[in-house]
């Protein structure tokens, strides 16, 4: 568990299933909803609980973000981070777009950055955002991610196609940023 200035970041548990499931709002396409084939996936609460119970899948990679009152604000994930991997995908799922421009989001990113670059010794973090996720994209850019390009009309949902932008941040290039908060291990 990491206790920061604004949040508590801890391994996600099966009991977080309902709170996590609420993030999967099908009303608005968001990149963190995308599965491996970049399809919008809306799991059931039971599927969510089952997934969060699989320690081999989520241990050290899937985290719940809580405020100090115990309310789950979102989750963050380091997808595909294995010893033999050189990179992993960063996913920060917060309940509303405005949250990406807050110290809470910055604190979550600093946690993931340390986890990826220091603890797991990765060379690169990658991230994706849909064409209309401007707040999330700004958040990634503020933390040093640069665009690798845009896959046109990649994701189909809500009756239309969305472009998918790929971004990356190298270990050698990361210099911090954002709103300048810091998380401390407890």
């Amino acid at each position, binding site marked *: 568990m990491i206790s920061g200035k604004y949040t508590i970041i801890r391994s996600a548990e099966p009991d977080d299933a309902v709170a996590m499931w609420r993030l999967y709002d099908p009303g608005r396409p968001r990149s963190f909803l995308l599965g491996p084939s970049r399809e919008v996936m809306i799991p059931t609460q039971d599927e969510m609980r089952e997934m969060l119970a699989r320690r081999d899948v989520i241990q050290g990679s899937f985290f719940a973000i809580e405020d100090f009152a115990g309310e789950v604000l979102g989750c963050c994930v380091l997808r595909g981070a294995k010893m033999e991997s050189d990179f992993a995908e960063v996913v920060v799922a917060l309940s509303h777009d405005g949250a990406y421009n807050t110290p809470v989001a910055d604190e979550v990113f600093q946690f993931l950055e340390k986890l990826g670059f220091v603890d797991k010794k990765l060379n690169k973090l990658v991230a994706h955002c849909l064409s209309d996720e401007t707040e999330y994209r700004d958040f990634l850019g503020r933390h040093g991610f640069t665009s690798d390009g845009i*896959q046109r009309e990649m994701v189909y949902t809500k009756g239309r196609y969305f472009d998918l932008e790929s971004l990356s941040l190298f270990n050698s290039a990361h210099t911090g940023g954002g709103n300048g908060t810091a998380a401390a291990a407890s």
Partner: protein
Amino acid sequence: MELRLRRPERSDLDIIVDWMGDAEFRHFLFGDTGPRPQHMGQQVLGVMSSALAIPMASAGNLLLEDDAAGTIGIVMLQDVSWRNRSCFLALYLAAEHRNGETIARATDTVFTYCFEELNLHRAAMRVEAGQTEYAQACTQAGAVREFVMPGHAQRDGKPVDVHGYGVLRAEFDARRNVAAGA
């Protein structure tokens, strides 16, 4: 003459076993050329098991065949999404067929298969920096370079950039119509 795509048969085993001796084929399959923990038989079976026979499959392998030259390579369809109607392609050609002309014919054949058989909306291919003939073939087939991922793959132990080339159905159809003089 056009190339054909077909699912692997048991009788193709010898060809695939031969290809396993080619470092480029191992790189194509596994992303590196080093030894694998799986037995050779398991690796070959993985290539043979083209799940494209299953409706809604998300991946599969197809052999590339030429009337005169026989089986010349293999195509891997990855991340097939029937909801997005998109996929990524990877192409391997046996060493004796790895030349600009055949790469261009094979790439065009594969993109055509994606649109005219699988009825996809977009198809894309990842090409490593330095694979200029593959990049040119993608461009000739109407694909646009959409992204460059720095140091995203390993080649001989060194990071190499990966370029992504994508083509949309509308672009493919427009190019076909122009070529047909429509």
